[in-house]
């Protein structure tokens, strides 16, 4: 009796676990008419960064619907939720490539996911358009180029340089301390170009301290940084780490400015550390206060009854590159090709992207790096616990 | 502290099966009220199992345990202890890391009239209750002559004292009956003699009904008014020690095993 009950209880626990972890599978939309091109999307629809993934997916749906309303050749859109998890991203990528037989994968903002499925894209010869930040997504090593991976937005190299230039020229701050996650290329690949540009143009890095992803207390590192009297502290991290670092630095008496990059724009950062990050500056891909993005914002808000995240504009850049390629190849011609031919044709066309007008930037992809080498970026500050667009800025 | 007459204690038809092994088989014993009753028998005869059945560590498959007519069968160990059954173990089971005094004070758990919420709110009550516990514990330690050792930790005591401490701990609960499982095991002859005096004096002073399991026949001979012999889970003889020792069944059991006790 007892044993039976024990087994029963254990089973119940296991079943409910499976139930709780298994929800969130998504499939693509239904099959269209005769002529179509199947496109795949990886989105973090659930998990810690779900707000970004949902914005990306919502906007892509708008764009696909618009395309399908205007064109004979339909786009057949398949989306997989990779839950912001690298393993999940790999298996979702495989499913898109092998089962859904997509011609192109719209990747994600998550650099680690991109780094993980990059080699698979090479092996399976599936072109990927991502809006990730890490330059390694397309150039995993100095002399190596991923033939099938492309970035459509400003990589961390541009972000690091832009922030460094803006700090020196516009903010007039010459002494900066740095605190970042040493295990996350989201942070390291921004810190390096920042440091290079900053020290190369007359600035000083007064202290450089690191932490690991699961740390939540940086008081010791911050005490060390603050003791070097910097004008500003660069925090190129995730919003939660930024919030904690800013809170802890203020508690330790730091009065200066915080600087950052695209890990910053999140409402949660303001909720967690609103007044601690007051007066901070960071770079972002764009801003919805920028008149250029009004259109997108209106369409999105009308359809979803909530404001978009910047990821919606970022997937817009990828989609612009994609439609440009399709038009160059010819939609009918492309739809008639075999899957392997479609993939190859798209890859070749992506590599030749020149002066394509995206949502935010005029995009030119460098064939040697498979990403834009320059971009204008939005400079955002925080005022009265709100994000405030300052200007767009392009480093020379 | 002393009782007018010792408690009546008996158990009927106790049976316990472990897997295929009938460890205790239809055992009935009536203890001498206010006296000392012995249980003897070779290794593995089922003696300790009988004690474990009485104190509730095992649930009997059949049978009944009665203390002054009150049925204790199938209750939880702490309930049986609270009903007045104190015992010691064949393998000493002290609270090794705790002081002698704390070992004994633990036995007063039930009689202390306060709980956690008092602990948080009414400190004076705790102090007075704890004072009472300490006095009762010291009284029990005095009974076994261990007052001077009260601050030592259980594990640091010599073996003989550890056995005594177990007895003190059992007595502190003011039990109606006391079960001693091989109290002389591992003691030297001098210590055994002291133990005999101790048990006798406790029995006399408190009028306590005592059941004792022993292999030392000297101890059984000098203490027990009545003796039961067990073999393979069954009681094969009962009566005075002399009667039991001359019982044909007992002789056969011992000769058959080729072992000699006494």
């Amino acid at each position, binding site marked *: 009796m*007892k*044993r039976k*009950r*024990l087994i029963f*209880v*254990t089973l119940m*626990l296991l079943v409910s*676990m499976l139930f*709780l972890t298994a929800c969130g599978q998504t499939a693509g939309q239904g099959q269209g008419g005769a002529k179509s091109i199947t496109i795949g999307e990886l989105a973090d629809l*659930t*998990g810690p960064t*779900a707000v970004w993934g949902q914005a990306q997916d919502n906007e892509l749906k708008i764009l696909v619907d618009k395309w399908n309303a205007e064109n004979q050749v339909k786009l057949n859109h398949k989306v997989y939720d990779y839950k912001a998890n690298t393993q999940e991203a790999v298996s979702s990528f495989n499913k898109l490539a092998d089962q859904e037989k997509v011609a192109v994968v719209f990747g994600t903002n998550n650099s680690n996911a991109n780094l993980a499925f990059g080699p698979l894209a090479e092996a399976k010869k599936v072109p990927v358009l991502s809006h990730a930040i890490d330059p390694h997504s397309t150039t995993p090593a100095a002399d190596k180029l991923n033939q099938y991976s492309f970035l459509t937005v400003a990589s961390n190299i541009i972000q690091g340089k832009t922030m460094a230039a803006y700090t020196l020229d516009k903010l007039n701050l010459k002494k900066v301390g740095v605190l970042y996650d*040493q295990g996350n290329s989201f942070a390291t690949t921004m810190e390096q170009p920042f440091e290079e540009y900053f020290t190369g143009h007359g600035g000083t890095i007064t202290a450089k*301290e690191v932490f690991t992803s*699961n*740390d*939540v*207390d940086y*008081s*010791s*590192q911050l*005490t*060390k940084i603050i003791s070097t009297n910097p004008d500003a502290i660069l925090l190129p991290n995730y919003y*939660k780490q930024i*919030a*904690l670092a800013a809170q802890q630095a203020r*508690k*330790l*008496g730091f009065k200066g400015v915080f600087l950052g990059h695209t890990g910053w724009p999140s409402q*949660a950062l303001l909720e967690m550390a609103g007044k601690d990050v007051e007066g901070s500056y960071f770079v972002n891909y764009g801003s919805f206060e920028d008149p250029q993005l009004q259109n997108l914002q209106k369409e999105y808000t009308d359809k979803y009854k909530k404001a978009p995240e910047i990821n919606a504009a970022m997937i817009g850049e990828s989609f612009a590159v994609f439609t440009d390629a399709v038009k160059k190849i010819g939609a009918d011609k492309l739809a008639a090709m075999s899957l392997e031919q479609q993939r190859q044709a798209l890859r070749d066309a992506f590599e030749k992207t020149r002066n394509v007008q995206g949502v935010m930037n005029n995009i030119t992809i460098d064939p040697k790096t498979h990403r834009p080498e320059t971009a204008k970026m939005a400079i955002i500050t925080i005022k009265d616990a709100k994000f405030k667009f300052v200007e767009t800025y392009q480093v020379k | 502290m002393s009782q007018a007459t010792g408690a009546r204690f008996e158990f009927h038809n106790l049976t316990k099966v472990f897997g295929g092994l009938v460890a205790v088989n239809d055992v009935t014993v009536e203890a001498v009220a206010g006296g000392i009753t012995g249980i003897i028998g070779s290794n593995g005869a089922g003696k300790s199992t009988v004690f474990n059945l009485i*104190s509730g*560590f095992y649930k009997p498959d059949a049978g009944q345990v009665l203390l002054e007519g009150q049925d204790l069968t199938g209750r*939880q*160990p*702490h309930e049986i*202890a*609270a009903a007045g059954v*104190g*015992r010691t*173990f064949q*393998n000493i*089971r*002290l*609270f*090794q*890391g705790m002081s002698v005094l*704390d*070992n004994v*004070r*633990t*036995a007063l*758990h039930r009689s202390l009239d*306060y709980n*956690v919420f008092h*602990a948080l709110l009414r400190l004076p009550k*705790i102090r007075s209750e*704890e004072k009472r*516990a300490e006095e009762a514990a010291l009284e029990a330690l005095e009974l076994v002559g261990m007052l001077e050792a009260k601050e030592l930790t259980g594990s640091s005591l010599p073996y003989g004292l550890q056995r005594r401490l177990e007895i003190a*701990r059992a007595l502190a*609960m003011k039990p109606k009956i006391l079960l001693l499982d091989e109290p002389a095991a591992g003691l030297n002859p001098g210590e055994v003699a002291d133990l005999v005096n101790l048990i006798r004096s406790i029995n006399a002073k408190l009028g306590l009904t005592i059941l004792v399991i022993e292999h030392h026949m000297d101890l059984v001979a000098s203490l027990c008014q009545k003796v039961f012999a067990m073999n393979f889970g069954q009681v094969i003889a009962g009566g005075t020690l002399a009667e039991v020792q001359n019982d044909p069944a007992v002789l056969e059991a011992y000769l058959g095993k080729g072992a000699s006790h006494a």
Partner: protein
Amino acid sequence: MFWQQVFNGLSAGGIYALIAVGFSLIYSIMRYINLAHGSLIMIGAYIGYAVVTATNFPLIPALLAAAAGTAIVSVIVERLAFRPIRVRGVSTLYILVSSMVVSILLQNLVMVIFGPSFRTLPQLVSDVPVVTHPINIARLDFYMMIVVVLSLVSLNFVLYRTKAGRAMRAVSFNPKAAALMGVNTDRVVSLAFALAGALAGIAGIFLGIKYSVYPQLGELILKGFVASVFGGLGSVAGAVVGGLALGVIEVFLIAYGSSSFSPVMIYALLVLILLLRPRGILGRIVEDKV
């Protein structure tokens, strides 16, 4: 900077101690490792969050509510997930696995109820530092250290000055003999889980205030676990010493060594301690029960 770093270390160490004590308490009595303790801390943080957002309670009532709520959850967890295994007397390995399952279950439960996002407790403690010279002491850290000390002193009082504490210690040494002394071991186990839960609730609120509230908050248990091994698994005093030591060592490795190597160093140190002194700083040698 030196004293500032000492304070940083003690303030982190205080939290580690609070985590480690709850963890060690269960280990010392039950001799099994409750992997769900981290999730209980997380539950404590969410209870605190829910109570504070719903009622605007100030710090002290919020602490009491989180402590009480988590204590109840802790007792329920023991009843449902550990007791059925314990009474059957099978290997404690099953309990380890069960506690892991409970931990995942609680995390998922919270994920379903509250969602995966980070939550911030409304400000319970003013920002104005207690002192700014010669070192900066944040009010939250100051209060936290007072509460940590008070909790540990109360725990010590319960364990060493009350019958319930004595019964707990007795059960930790010998549950059978304790039962024989009239101690209801089931009740004592529940009480131990209630105490550990209350400590988890208190730790949870402070962790929540300091580091925000999210379903994986319980992963900080790892530090508490390291601290309790440092101090001696199963020793409550050891958990306190281990927690404070871990906090200070960690901070000093960063302050006077390098922040890139400190995570490695701290685990290297742990391995070293285990090799040289397996029972930790204050641990007692665990004897096999007969």
